[in-house]
């Protein structure tokens, strides 16, 4: 994030979760001009007056993405003080994701954490105290439930980071001595303490992983139920939901579109999506349903793929599994174990009966594990839940990985030191050490995106 830039940025201003409406905010020099090609009608945002609102369809190329309302703001009378707009769209995650990526291709950079507020501050639209208050309100609303615990855990994260930082700083110091005192005899022992480096990397990596778990608990995951027609997806959907929402029948191809509902599994909000069954079809309506199933499978976080145990794995199943498995984690379930004609479940399948509910707990456990990327962490472990900290930790770990790879290749100390400096720079921004540059960014990085 550049401190002084006013390049066009975009970000979701509302929580990244399903809701009736979502707001995407864009800001920066030329942002209204950039919107022009994304509007699928003759309306021209670039010539719109400030404080006006317009209905239009946003398009990705020629394809309509969503019908939206665009509120236009003109500098300096806007939140950031720059030209910009707020786009009110439908609050489904696929729509939001698609719109953000469309904006990205259209020339908008994803806003850094707190960047809108930073700009508001820089443009004199907001005092410092006010800017800090925005952050506090935002924090209070999203994290009220966790309140004090969160603050305590934040301290625990800093502690861990500081420990890693200190050991890496030692490593750096050693490297610098090598460089700045080339003639002098060095102390015995390995010149570069790889064991220490790896230990620090593990600690940081475990914090990165905790972010994922924190996010999963907060934002949930999308789980698509897929399989051939009549393998029992809708019945499983109802079973997991504990209500009759999907139409259950024995006719093949009943679910021609997809249905979704939210359920809490092990504390994780799970968006369950029941899809149209897969089979070769000539019915245009059903074919469309199947096409959309493939889309849903590809965009879900997890796919539960159901095979009818009385029929066994078919060619359709094989190709669908291969396709989905390359993109997302897939849990394979072997249904209808209650029927006499059911064959024994192969080893990699979870045996269930959607009709009787047997095997349900195991399936739920597997879904949670897949969502969390492993068994749930001990609740006393700190969870990283700020995007900024996560990004910094990822940057630090990536730098250490580059360091190790370069070291293994016999790269000279001057370059190894660059990677280590990158890493320390990132960690310094978490553990509070003052780094020489990017001062402003750090100050504002505590702010939520788009607020």
């Amino acid at each position: 994030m550049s401190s002084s830039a006013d390049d066009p940025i975009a970000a979701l201003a509302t929580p990244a979760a399903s809701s009736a409406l979502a707001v995407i905010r864009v800001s920066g020099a030329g942002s209204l001009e950039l919107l022009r090609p994304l509007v699928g009608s003759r309306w021209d945002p670039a010539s719109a007056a400030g404080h006006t609102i317009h209905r239009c369809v946003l398009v990705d190329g020629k394809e309509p993405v969503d019908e939206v309302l665009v509120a236009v703001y003109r500098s300096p009378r806007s939140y950031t003080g720059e030209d910009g707009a707020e786009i009110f769209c439908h609050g489904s995650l696929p729509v939001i994701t698609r719109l953000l990526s469309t904006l990205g291709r259209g020339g908008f950079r994803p806003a850094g954490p707190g960047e809108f507020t930073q700009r508001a501050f820089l443009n004199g639209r907001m005092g410092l105290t006010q800017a800090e208050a925005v952050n506090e309100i935002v924090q209070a609303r999203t994290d009220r439930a966790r309140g004090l615990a969160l603050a305590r855990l934040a301290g625990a994260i800093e502690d861990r980071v500081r420990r890693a930082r200190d050991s890496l700083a030692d490593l750096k110091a050693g490297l610098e001595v090598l460089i700045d005192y080339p003639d002098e005899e060095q102390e015995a022992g390995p010149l570069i303490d790889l064991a220490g480096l790896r230990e620090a990397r593990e600690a940081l990596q475990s914090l990165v992983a905790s972010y994922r778990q924190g996010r999963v608990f907060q934002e949930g995951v999308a789980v698509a139920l897929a399989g051939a027609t009549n393998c029992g997806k809708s019945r499983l959907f109802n079973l997991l939901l504990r209500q009759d929402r999907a139409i259950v029948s024995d006719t093949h191809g009943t679910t021609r579109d997809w249905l979704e509902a939210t359920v809490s599994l092990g504390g994780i909000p799970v968006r369950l999506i029941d899809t149209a069954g897969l089979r070769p079809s000539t019915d245009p309506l059903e074919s469309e349903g199947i096409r959309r199933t493939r889309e849903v499978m590809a965009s879900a976080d997890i796919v539960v793929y159901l095979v009818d145990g009385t029929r066994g794995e078919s060619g359709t199943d094989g190709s669908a599994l291969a396709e989905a498995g390359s993109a997302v984690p897939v849990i394979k379930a072997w249904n209808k174990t209650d029927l006499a004609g059911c064959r024994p479940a192969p080893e990699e399948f979870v045996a269930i009966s959607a009709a009787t509910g047997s095997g349900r707990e195991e399936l739920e456990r597997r879904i949670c594990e897949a969502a969390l990327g492993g068994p749930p962490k001990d609740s006393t472990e700190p969870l990283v839940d700020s995007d900024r900290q996560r990004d910094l930790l990822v940057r630090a770990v990536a730098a250490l990985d580059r360091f190790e790879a370069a070291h293994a290749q016999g790269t000279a100390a001057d370059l190894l030191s660059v990677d280590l400096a990158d890493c320390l720079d990132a960690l310094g921004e978490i553990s509070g050490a003052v780094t020489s540059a990017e001062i402003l960014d750090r100050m504002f990085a505590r702010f939520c995106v788009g607020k």
Partner: protein
Amino acid sequence: MEGDFDAVVVGGGHAGIEAALALARLGCSTLLVTQSIDSIGRMSCNPAIGGIAKGNLVREIDALGGQMARLIDASMIQFRLLNRSRGPAVQAPRAQADKALYALLARQALESQDNLSLFSDTVTDLLPGDDGKAAGVLTARGNRIRCRAVVLTTGTFMEGRLFIGEWSAPGGRLGEPAAEGLGANLRRRGFTVGRMKTGTPARGRARSLDTSRMERQEPDREALPFSFSGESVPRPSVPCWITYTNERTHAVIRENLHRSPLYSGRIVGRGPRYCPSIEDKVVRFPERLRHQVFVEPEGLDTDEVYFNGVSSSLPEDVQEKFLRTLPGLEHLEIARPGYAVEYDYLDPTQLLPSLMSKAVEGLFVAGQTNGTSGYEEAAAQGILAGINAGQYLRGRPPLVLSRAEAYIGVMVDDLVTRGTEDPYRLFTSRAEYRLSLRHDTADARLVPRGREVGLQTAAAEERLARKLRGLEEVRHLLRTRRVTTEDGAALAVIARHVGQSFEQALRDPRVLIGHLSEREPDLASRPAEWRALVETEVKYAGYIERQDALVGRFRGLEDRRIPGDVNWDTVPGLSSEAREKLRRIRPVSVGQASRVPGVRPPDIAVLLVHMGRKR
């Protein structure tokens, strides 16, 4: 004194030499005042120029149009390129000097310079003008020398005091008197003056040593000139020797610590952390069983040698006793004892990045007077102070080098922004962007800057243009020449790269430019330095790119200039600590302000808002 000057340079050390030459070459009539013309260009401590980061400074001085590189090129008696195994970004040239020859050449350079006069006297005070600007100097013999710019380069002489064991006396260097009066007068005029300490080891007679009991340190076979001028002459090359202290050495030192002025509390000035005395090393690192000592010749026409690594202010009998415990030094004859020197320095945060005083316009300060240490650090500040005194006299804007542009920029920014607690030495690790500050790119970075101010010659500019064209040709050759099947058959290391360009092959860590040169006469015919430079570019491309991105972000805040007349009391929202620090440091850019200790990110945010979004 009759015949007033544009500028007076006080001191004839490494800073004074560069400052005086720069001023005179810029066309300003200049007088160099020194206590002893015979002492011009003396190397008070080790007989070497260059080293890590310091070698880069020497080449930067040369690129700007300075003298140091030429002096050492013509007086070196050993050359080594350091850090060959630690990567080109941190490699640096270092040379042993013939001390007497170096000083003689320095004096000749000054004496043969137009616009430059030399005068032997001791400056004791500044003569301020009615407008508060620098207007001249007063000397011990009562001479009042009028001028419009003064450059102070007093080294260790300002109120200098020497210490050897229980003995102590005023002095600037062993056998040379201190410059008394100036420090007291500067204090009286309101300057913040502090004390610093440094030390030097004993010198011995080579004939008393047994080199068969030491390790031999070989010079490089080929010497690389420091100067980009290409005018170097062949020089003799002699070895150095390495020996070690041992438990007996350390025992002698420990038993006599109470006789050291450092440990008895008689020296108040801070010593250099990076170059501790041997008594410091023994006390602070008791677990070390030995310390390395380099035995370096002081010149070809002298029998004196320098013991690098054992500076000491212990009593002379103790120095002799502990030195004689070292292998090869059993029968050592000491020619001069080691000693500590304590001296006045001016807090460098009283200066602008041009090295001009904030309090007295026209007064410039350089070298150890600013709390630094080292010949190269001194010379680098000297040339910058000289250039900027010249700019000031001619009514032109100062030359300020950035941290991303030169080691000189890193050092000066550190000094004027953060100050220094102990004698400041440059390290490569002080530079955030050291990949961009390699010694072999100093000409490309700084010849244009030297030319801009009028110090560098047209010939140097042409030489640089020729080199840049040549580099472009080498790059083109690497991009277009492909590894053929014959190349692969002849040279196993490039066999896997058949069909690729030379540039692609060179990205392989195992492939060196030397390999490719074997296969391509056109490449082999290019100067080795050019080939090495392009090789570094190719191999380091990814890293250099990432660093350039950082440099870009750095420049963003450096380019936000803060007007000199800003009233910090009218900037709302600053913390009181920041307000006080900013008022004192008077940063010239938001970038510099952000590096002032005590200034926090919110203060910078407030500052940016106050300045508006002008770009």
